[in-house]
């Protein structure tokens, strides 16, 4: 299980690929579920042209480890990778990557979504957006976890 907090732009597919290559799991995993959160150029109706991600160093790692441990208790997962960006971020750059390897698909799907929701609720990160007007504002609340089915 690996948690990486990175200060510069990362390439999610390269991260997953490199991580997977060094796992001794060939033939053992049947399912990989991946979530990538990417910075948009809009939020709550406004154009956003930059963002700064602050975190509570130490607590971040501790909380993410705890979230993975709980997921491992709930589902049968073989490996987990979390990469989260901090610092100054531009639109279309990745913010977060979660990847779960398991034998069966339901475990991977459920654990990946669980970890993402727990990260959103409990990992001590904070986003400050810079709007196109150059005003800055703290993001006050993460969006809801449930989709509005059409």
């Amino acid at each position: 299980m690996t948690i990486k907090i990175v200060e510069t732009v990362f390439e999610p597919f390269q991260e997953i690929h490199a991580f997977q290559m060094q796992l001794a799991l060939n033939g053992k995993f049947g399912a990989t579920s991946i979530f990538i959160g990417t910075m948009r150029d809009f939020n709550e109706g406004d154009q956003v042209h930059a963002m700064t991600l602050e975190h509570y160093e130490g607590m971040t790692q501790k909380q993410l480890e705890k979230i993975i441990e709980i997921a491992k208790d709930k589902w049968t997962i073989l490996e987990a990778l979390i990469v989260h960006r901090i610092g100054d971020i531009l639109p279309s750059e990745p913010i977060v990557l979660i990847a779960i390897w398991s034998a069966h698909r339901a475990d991977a799907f459920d654990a990946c979504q669980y970890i993402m929701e727990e990260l959103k609720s409990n990992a001590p990160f904070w986003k400050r957006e810079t709007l196109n007007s150059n005003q800055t504002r703290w993001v006050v609340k993460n969006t809801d976890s449930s989709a509005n089915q059409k």
Partner: protein
Amino acid sequence: MIIITLRYFASLREQIGRSQETLTLTDSITVLDVWQKVHQTPLPDNTLIAVNMEYVERMHYICDGDEVAFFPPVTGG
């Protein structure tokens, strides 16, 4: 004697104007009392509190050497 470190993050850090300070107390008090002693204002409603990097309730009692952090709802991911 109880010496604790207080830490503030994000918008709360900006409002308070500092990220860290030290507090010396004679007795263990709750984290809510710590806030009120230092800031003389009610703790903002949504504030989250961590002691030694674990979430705690407002009625959690501090110990010597604790790092007590106050911060707004998290918005990562």
